[in-house]
């Protein structure tokens, strides 16, 4: 008993004692919540969903208003843009004819080669539109919230894109809303590191792994490029679709520089992201087809 009372005398200042306990509890919570979690507990679900439900009433009208002012300012560019779009549409109409022909032929060849049903559906990725409802204020945790959740079939680590390119990966999924972590938070050193295997549009045989973001240069880092790889500056980097999680062909960015990597064996390229990360209103979540079995859960580096 004497020992115990002596111990308490050290913590005679009750506040210090409470502070210690609080610190320990919070360190435990942080450590526990850091890793991958497929299901959240009900208090988290309740708070997350009900707050986001209110946030969506604010975010969208604000976006419309901001867009209105933007429109007035950019009125002069619209004529030029219209001209460009007309050219693009003409090109699109031409390509469409070609595409239809090739698709039909592709179908026929698949039949001829007796593709299994599962193989046929392997690339049937679904692009589900989602509205952004709120943006985090923490610069080191810059997630944003979208209005699709686990009840809509969203799972962690699905790719999120805009019309410009890959924006982020779904981070945590609540029943009605989910948080998206921008790809600017990719970090090879963290415990739950994600990696995106990538290739370039110009050379199909190129391969590299994007698993890091250099905030000081504002560029993604693509590692493990073979020395003989034809990848060069100015190429458009796209997802390679090799892991089965992200579909083939999502635009990530353009190659800015290429140099010999840290260990001298492989090359490293810096990639300027194609997508904008601020003032997002609508994004698309890429839902892989349900093939009956779980696809490779993570795109691991080879």
């Amino acid at each position: 008993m004497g020992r115990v009372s002596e111990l308490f005398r050290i913590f005679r200042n009750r506040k210090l004692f409470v502070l210690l306990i609080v610190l320990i509890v919070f360190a435990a919570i942080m450590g526990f919540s850091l890793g991958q979690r497929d299901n959240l507990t009900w208090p988290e679900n309740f708070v997350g969903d009900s707050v986001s439900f209110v946030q969506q009433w604010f975010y969208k009208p604000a976006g419309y208003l901001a867009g209105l002012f933007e429109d007035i300012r950019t009125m002069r560019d619209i004529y030029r843009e219209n001209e460009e779009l007309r050219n693009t549409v003409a090109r699109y109409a031409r390509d469409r004819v070609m595409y239809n022909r090739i698709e039909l032929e592709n179908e026929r060849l698949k039949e001829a080669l007796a593709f299994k049903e599962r193989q046929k559906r392997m690339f049937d990725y679904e692009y589900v539109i989602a509205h952004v409802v709120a943006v985090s204020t923490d610069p080191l945790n810059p997630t944003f919230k979208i209005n699709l959740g686990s009840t809509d079939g969203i799972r962690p680590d699905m790719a999120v894109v805009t019309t410009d390119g890959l924006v982020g990966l779904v981070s945590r999924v609540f029943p009605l809303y989910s948080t998206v972590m921008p790809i600017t938070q990719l970090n090879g050193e963290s415990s739950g590191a994600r990696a995106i295997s990538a290739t370039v549009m110009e050379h199909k045989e190129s391969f590299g792994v994007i698993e890091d973001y250099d905030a000081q240069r504002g560029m993604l880092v693509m590692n493990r490029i073979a020395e003989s790889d034809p990848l060069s500056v100015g190429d458009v980097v796209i997802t390679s679709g090799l892991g089965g999680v992200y579909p083939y062909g999502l635009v990530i960015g353009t190659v800015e520089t290429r140099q010999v990597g840290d260990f001298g064996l492989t090359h490293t390229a810096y990639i300027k992201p194609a997508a904008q990360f601020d003032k997002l209103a609508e994004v698309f979540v890429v839902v892989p087809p349900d093939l009956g079995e779980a696809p490779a859960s993570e795109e691991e580096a080879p």
Partner: protein
Amino acid sequence: MNTKRVIALTVLLFMLETTIVPWLIPESMHGRLAPHFVFVAALYAGMYAGRHPALFIGLIFGMMQDIVFYGHMLGVHTLLMGSIAYLTGLLLEGKRVPMLAALFVIALCCFLYDSAAYGIYRVFRVTHEPYEFVLMQSIAPSLFLQTGFALAAYVPARRLLEPKAKKDGDEEE
């Protein structure tokens, strides 16, 4: 202090800083200016209402921020907002805090808050940027934003939070 009105206004602030303010931040400052208006409100509560309301506001809204934008991990904002607001209340509760002193305390606390958040993320290896870079990139500009907001909110915050009886004594604002 009108508790209901304070809570309603703080909820409104939280909604503002997560939905409307991001649209107002210019593109060049994206990812650099971080509004922490609710944190400023918690600090004002610590200075003019007492340490317990401050702790309450800090914990509740920190938890909201943590859970709603759950990306890397939970608990960072709950811990920091709660503890810093409580500490401010503990040190300054019941003292007369004029405007310049209040602004100085808020700037100091915002610096502490952002730096401690960076420290926690660094310890858990969520970020690997050097501190000098983060300091210049986001902590310093955000500090000015928070101080500007604190200046704008000083009079309404004090009117709202200060106990009625004491107010007759010092009307120097």
